């Protein structure tokens, strides 16, 4: 099992005094796409936040690259290569687009390389170049999502956790984002994709988890889950 980049064991976490996710085991394979699907409110976002250290952990362990990170602060986790794009509030609205990208590359040593990478990002997303000096809060939903992913990639993470990157976006934008995710994986970055839209996430992934009410209730390859009768009935509806 040395090919796991992240292992979460018996993870129980939440906010304040309330427990949201309970006793979950998750293994993320290096270089693969792992999808986490489940209905709204099932604790998918909370699980991702727990991996980056933004929730209160009540029990369990999180291992990254063979090291225990259970008690590590979020800023230190990002410094060892864990990248994260939150579902909401995933940009700095009062910073310009360039500044958002600079902060993305905050912990990198070479400012020259950061500059070069910002140029490269703006070649890929011309809309970001056009509006480079504008506040990021002025971007549209799809543009924001592009910026949010670009910001996280600026850090050159080993693993990228994406929380519903395609939610509430026009189909054409969704396909661009999914293409981008495939490109990220092809560069050797491990991707964890949280999606409410179960079908498209499971078709894309190597391995998947299904959550309901704060617990992982099903796991397997994307194909296995998609062909499971109970899953199809509960999540995709009979057609």
């Amino acid at each position, binding site marked *: 099992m040395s090919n796991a980049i992240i292992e979460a064991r018996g993870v129980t976490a939440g906010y304040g005094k309330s427990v949201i996710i309970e006793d979950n085991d998750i293994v993320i394979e290096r270089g693969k796409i792992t999808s986490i699907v489940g209905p709204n409110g099932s604790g998918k976002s909370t699980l991702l936040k727990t991996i980056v250290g933004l*929730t209160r952990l009540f029990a369990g362990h999180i291992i990254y690259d063979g090291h225990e990170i259970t008690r590590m602060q979020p*800023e230190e986790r990002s410094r060892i290569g864990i990248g994260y794009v939150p579902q909401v509030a995933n940009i*700095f609205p009062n910073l310009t687009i360039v*500044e958002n990208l600079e902060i993305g590359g905050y912990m990198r040593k070479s400012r020259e390389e950061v500059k070069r990478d910002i140029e490269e990002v703006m070649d890929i997303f011309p809309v970001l170049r056009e509006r480079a000096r504008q506040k990021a809060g002025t971007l549209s939903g799809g543009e924001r999502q592009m910026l949010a992913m670009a910001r996280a990639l600026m850090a050159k993470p080993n693993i990228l956790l994406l929380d519903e990157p395609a939610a509430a976006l026009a189909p054409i934008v969704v396909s661009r984002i999914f293409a981008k995710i495939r490109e990220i994986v092809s560069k050797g970055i491990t991707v964890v994709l949280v999606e409410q839209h179960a079908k498209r996430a499971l078709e894309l992934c190597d391995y998947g988890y299904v959550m309901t009410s704060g617990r992982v209730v099903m796991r397997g390859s994307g194909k296995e889950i998609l062909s499971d009768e109970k899953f199809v009935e509960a999540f995709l509806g009979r057609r």
Partner: protein
Amino acid sequence: MAIDLTLPLLNSLALGSLYTLMALGLTITFSVTRIPNFAHAELVTVGGYVTAVLVNFMALPPHIALLAAFTASAILALSMDELVFKPLYKRGSRPLFLLVASIGVGLIVRYILFSLADATGNITIQTNVSVNPIMRFGRAYITTFHAIVIPATIAIVIALHILFHYTLMGKALRAISDNEDLARVSGIRIYRLRRVAWLIAGGVAGLAGGLWSISLIIDPNFGWDTLLRIFASSILGGLTSFWGTIIGGYIVGFAENIGIALLNTWFGINTAYRPLISFAIIVAVFLIRPRGFAGIDVRNIVSRLVVSRPRS
């Protein structure tokens, strides 16, 4: 009857500059830590006392004394955070608790100052720097005080603007202000960086107190007596806006001096009601324009003070 407004105009500019300096620190620490720091008042007072004592009793030149005031208040601000606010914040304290804690911290500093000032017979003191007229302006004089305070404010505003917009550290501070969690997952060590915010806020407040002690007889309450104006300036800018705070500082300065002069002449309102102007400004902002000038909803921020923050 024509009113001569030249003196109130000059006072507005000088006091508006001081309010700006004091309020900028409040805005900076609020932006980075979300603590409405009532102990900011005492940072001003300490700066005033350090300046006065060093100039009057140790015969230090004023600019050295002001530098010492900056340093002393910067260190005091940092200590407040390290000893009280940061530990509370890390434990997940609500913003309202932090607000109350800041009132307590201010009270402690204020009474230590009272004891020290009383023991040494300095309950009131003024920095011994001669203020000389430089040139006539209407029926008033532009003095060396104006010639120090206004350019000093401009210089500090420019320096802070450069810090926040042209250095990575400054951009990181703005990032924390915008979205703390996202700043953390971008690798920003927020608990280290907030020290910078406290040092700047305290230092600039101390400097403002020191400058003011040249033209004002101060006592251990003088920062506290000014706190309403400081908050009014910051709230006019929506509590987190840099330029909004600067505009706010001058609005308060002008409203208090020119406003009261006009109210006095036209309606016979006693100038002793001057402090009520800041209070009126705060109420008016909350009622009419809760977003301040900068598009930030002050009312929402205030209501969030009583709502729990997730613990992490």
